[in-house]
Every structure is written in structure tokens, then in C-alpha cells.
């Protein structure tokens, strides 16, 4: 039996969360999806903070939720890490990390000894005596992760633990988090908005949309064949849907796309943002896939500049800063986007 086996149903006015999750020992599940998809509610339901309206939660041979069973949050072997850290402001770092074991009845000396070891493992051992107010965001989040792990959970729930941090701080912590989660013997669920988290930290990705599971798979599978537009955008792929006839795809929202893959029926056509070329006037050349549109947003994206267009139901293009400047890209600018047929991958929809 899986270490975690859950069917979470939570009903709210005008909204139902209905999600099945199963995971084995050592699994790290990234939970992604748009705002309001139910990611945080799923975590809180598993933790026992939000009551189920239906379904069950079983972990490591114990039933936490089920018909006639409701184990209080404090009796579940869960650890939670929150976006805002939520370290107890009146306790030192070591006091925070020792809190879980102290609540479990372990003596102060032993609990603080274990806490110090956890702080050392997370590289913040020398900050043990500091209060949260004296910690940087990255340091505080390391302490928060240590606090959750020190309580010896079987199920670790991380609710966007890196999203409140500076990009560079998040980057280094992401690598470490991946290492600690790999060492973690239970099941970890990581809610994230960042494709990088899902790709680097998780071995499986759970895609939520509108209260349900839209897709489950390995990060590579989800990146290659994203099931929802949100995920496609998140992992940085353009996904256009339509009906294929030979190598010609009639797009659902009008227009025609040409690929080099022969297919028949409903398909998704995917191409990376870097394969999209932008020009100011109508382009010449051999590219047959071309759209006129307006720039919606322009933002730095790694080394490149990511441009969102209102063409073809929303296109993403990555261009170099130099060409962005040369084209004078601003929200509202009119541009042409082209994609070579050879850049397009076509998947039958199923």
C-alpha cells in the first residue's frame, strides 16, 4: 500500500475540491495550478486543519480521515512549511525547531540538541540563538524547514516555501531543498508557482485545475505534454489546440498551423517560446506560421526577455534583450510572430 493514500473532498459555496493523491515512500510531489485551484486547501486538508466533507486520508498505515474517523492535526505526523515562514517570533531559532519535539513530551535538553543538529544540517547552526526578527528571509525559511523536519513527520507539506524569497536566495535554497527532500523518508508535497521547483525538486507533478486533478506525471512528461494552458505557460511552452489533417492543423480559435508531423484528429501543438520570432512588419521568409498581434507584457526571464502576445489565444516569445530593444517592444506594440513548422511538436489529445 502507498505511504500516502488520500481522497480529499472539500466543499465550499460554489466550489468543490476533489483530489486523489497516492504517493510512495520518498516521493516528492510538486502541486501546481492556477490561483484558486485548491492547492493550499489540499495541503490543509491533509494536515487536518481543514475538515474533509468526504473521502479519506491514510498515511503510513494510520487512518487520519475516513468514515467516522477524524484525527486532530496535532496527532498527525505532518510537518508544514509556510510561504511566510511563520516562525514563532518570541522564540529563538533553536526554540522554534525544538517546539515540535517539546510538544511531544521530549525534554528540553534533548529537544534542543536535536534542533541544533537540524539547524546545522540546514546550514544555519550558528544562528540558533537568534530570534526570527534577526534572520534574513532565506535564513528564516531554512529554520522553518528544520522546524517541520525536526518533528519527525511522515508527510511533509510545503506551501510555496520559496516564493517570498529573492530570486538568488530562492535559487540556492531550492538546490538544498531538493537534497533534503531526497533524503526525506516520507512523502513530501510541494505547492509551487515556479516551474523550476517542480522540475528540480519533485519526482512527480500533480496538476490541479478548478478543484480537480488535471494531470499527474513525471516533471518531464508534464513539461512535454502539459494538459492545461496554465501548466503550459508555467513550464514555458506554447500550446495551441486544433484538429489535424495531414500536417495542417485547424486551430480551435481560428487560423491554421503547419507542422512537419502527420496526425489526424484533435491535437495539441507545442513549441517553446524561444522558437518564436518577432518582427515589426509582416515577415518574409519561409515561415508559414505567422500571426499579427499586440504585446501584452514584456518582462525579463533569465537571460532573455519574455514577451506575451494576444495572438492565437496568447503566445509566449523569448527574445534577446538586444532584439527587444531594437523592436521597441512595449505593451501595446503591434508585432508579427512567426514559428517554423519544424519547431512544432504535435500530440494527439487524449
Amino acid at each position: 500500500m502507498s505511504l500516502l493514500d488520500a481522497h480529499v473532498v472539500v466543499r465550499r459555496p460554489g466550489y468543490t475540491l476533489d483530489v486523489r493523491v497516492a504517493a510512495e515512500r520518498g516521493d516528492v510531489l510538486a502541486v501546481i495550478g492556477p490561483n484558486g485551484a485548491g492547492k493550499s486547501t489540499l495541503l490543509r486538508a491533509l494536515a487536518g486543519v481543514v475538515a474533509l466533507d468526504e473521502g479519506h486520508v491514510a498515511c503510513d498505515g494510520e487512518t487520519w480521515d475516513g468514515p467516522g474517523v477524524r484525527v486532530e492535526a496535532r496527532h498527525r505526523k505532518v510537518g508544514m512549511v509556510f510561504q511566510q515562514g511563520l516562525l514563532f517570533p518570541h522564540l529563538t531559532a533553536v526554540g522554534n525547531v525544538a517546539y515540535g519535539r517539546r510538544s511531544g513530551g521530549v525534554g528540553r535538553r534533548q529537544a534542543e540538541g536535536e534542533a541544533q543538529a537540524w539547524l546545522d544540517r540546514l546550514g544555519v547552526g550558528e544562528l540558533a540563538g537568534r530570534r526570527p526578527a534577526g534572520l534574513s528571509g532565506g535564513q528564516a525559511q531554512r529554520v522553518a524547514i528544520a522546524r517541520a523536519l525536526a518533528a519527525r513527520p511522515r508527510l511533509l507539506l510545503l506551501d510555496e516555501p520559496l516564493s517570498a524569497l529573492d530570486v538568488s536566495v530562492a535559487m540556492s535554497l531550492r538546490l538544498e531543498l531538493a537534497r533534503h527532500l531526497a533524503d526525506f523518508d516520507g512523502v513530501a508535497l510541494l505547492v509551487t508557482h515556479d516551474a523550476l521547483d517542480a522540475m528540480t525538486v519533485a519526482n512527480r507533478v500533480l496538476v490541479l485545475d478548478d478543484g480537480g486533478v488535471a494531470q499527474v506525471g513525471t516533471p518531464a512528461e508534464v513539461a512535454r505534454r502539459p494538459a492545461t494552458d496554465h501548466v503550459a505557460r508555467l513550464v514555458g511552452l506554447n500550446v495551441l489546440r486544433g484538429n489535424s489533417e495531414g500536417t495542417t492543423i485547424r486551430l480551435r480559435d481560428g487560423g491554421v498551423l503547419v507542422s512537419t508531423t502527420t496526425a489526424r484528429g484533435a491535437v495539441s501543438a507545442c513549441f517553446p517560446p524561444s522558437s518564436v520570432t518577432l518582427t515589426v512588419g509582416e515577415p518574409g521568409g519561409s515561415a508559414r506560421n505567422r500571426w499579427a498581434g499586440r504585446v501584452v507584457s514584456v518582462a525579463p526571464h533569465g537571460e532573455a526577455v519574455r514577451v506575451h502576445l494576444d495572438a492565437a489565444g496568447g503566445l509566449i516569445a523569448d527574445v534577446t534583450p538586444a532584439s527587444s530593444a531594437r523592436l521597441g517592444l512595449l505593451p501595446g506594440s503591434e508585432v508579427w510572430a512567426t514559428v517554423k513548422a519544424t519547431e512544432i511538436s504535435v500530440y494527439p489529445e487524449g
Partner: protein
Amino acid sequence: MSRPPGAALGRPPARLLVPALLGAGFLALPLVALLARTPWSDFLHELTSPAVRDAMRLSLETSLAALVLVVAVGVPLAWTLARVDFPGRTVVRALVIVPLVLPPVVGGVALLSAFGRQGLVGKPLEQAFGISLPFTTAAVVVAHTFVSLPFFVLSVEGALRATDREYDVVAATLGASRWTTFRTVSLPLAGPGLLAGLVLAWARSLGEFGATITFAGNYPGTTRTMPNAIYVALQSDPEAALVLGVILLLVSVAVLALLRERWFDVAVQGSVRA
């Protein structure tokens, strides 16, 4: 950037400044007069007179005893109001506020109706155990508790509400019971509000007059607190009244100083460090 805009807007008009000055003067004048008329040369002598000393001792004892009762029931009441969703919570909160706006003398009459010889609880209490509360030192403590509890509860409830309830969730996921969470998280985080509530409640008790004299009377040594003593002394020994008045004034000023945020920050950090 943060320069006061006043200068650029011209001089403040006299028709606002003059009444403002009058108002401030009106507030200051009685205090100045009190200090001016106080017999400073006899201050120590008056201070050690038996009547003044008894009143001070009684006030200190009763106000501190009331404070113990206030904390014993006030903290649980504040926590329940802040953290438990129960039907009728707004009614309970309104009840807590009533003594705040009730004329103290009415409070005294209400206490008599409850705990007096013919009172709702007082009558059976006397018949069963021979206990009679009114006009005893215990009655002073009860009156003090009645008038000062609201200050404390509101202050602590506000502080509990101001702390993020997510901390309760964090503590629960770390295995803490609600009692442990209250003890180790909620209460320490509400520390400043608790201190403010303590100071406010104590000051209110110390100055209590109406409810006390109505419910407990004004007997030297048992129920004659400082405000009661001032009331009596004004007719017989005005100098003693002035001395007692100055002491209560000094206490008020001290409370004002204590309530300044800075002090609380320091006090809380100190208590956390210890």
C-alpha cells in the same frame, strides 16, 4: 519630504487656536491648583497619619487582590472571545463592555442586587453559609473586579486577535494541544496587551469610588479606600484629601508613562529574554 505642511499653508487661525488653548488650560488648571494647594511642608507628616496610611494600605491590598481575580477570569474570557466561535459571542462581548460605560454608582446598586442581604445570590449565600458580602473588604475587591475586568478583557482580547491565527495552526501541526498553544504561543505573543490590560485595570481599581461606596460602604480600615478617604477628608481634614489626591495623581502619571509603547516593547523583550 516629511516637513510639516503647516508652514506652507499659512498661520493657524486664531479662532481655532484660542479655544484650543482654553481647553488645554481648563484641563491643566485643576491639576496645577491641586499641586499648588498641597501642604508640601506637612506632606510627610500627613502621609504617615493613621487615616492616610490605612487608606493607602487598604487601596493597595484590595486593588491587587482584584487584579488577581481579573487575571484569573479575564485571560480565559479574552481567549474564548478571541478564539472560540460560539453562538451569542457578540452578546457576551457586549456584556463585557457594559460595566465600562455604566455609571459606577449603578454598578454598586447592581452588585447589591446580586450579592446584598436580599440579593439574588446574596440571600441564599447568607442563609446557607452565613456569609454576607456587602460592607466588607471582600466587597471592595468585588466592586473593583467588576469595574476593572472590562478594561483587561478588551485589552487582552485585542492583543490575541492581533496575533496571526496561523501561529495556532503551526503549533497544531507541530503536535501542540490547544492548551499548550495558548501557554507557549498565544499568551507570550499577547504579552504587551496583557501588560497594558494589567496597568489599566489596576489604575481603574485604584480610583474606584462610586461602586465601592455603594456596595461596600466607607468604614475606616475595612472599606475606606483612598478615594473614599478623600471624600470624607474633604469635610474634616482637607490637607489629607490633598495629599491623597496628589498620590493618586502621581499614580495616574506613572500609568500614562508605563502605557507608552516604548516601555512595553522593552518590557516584552526583557521578559522574553529572561
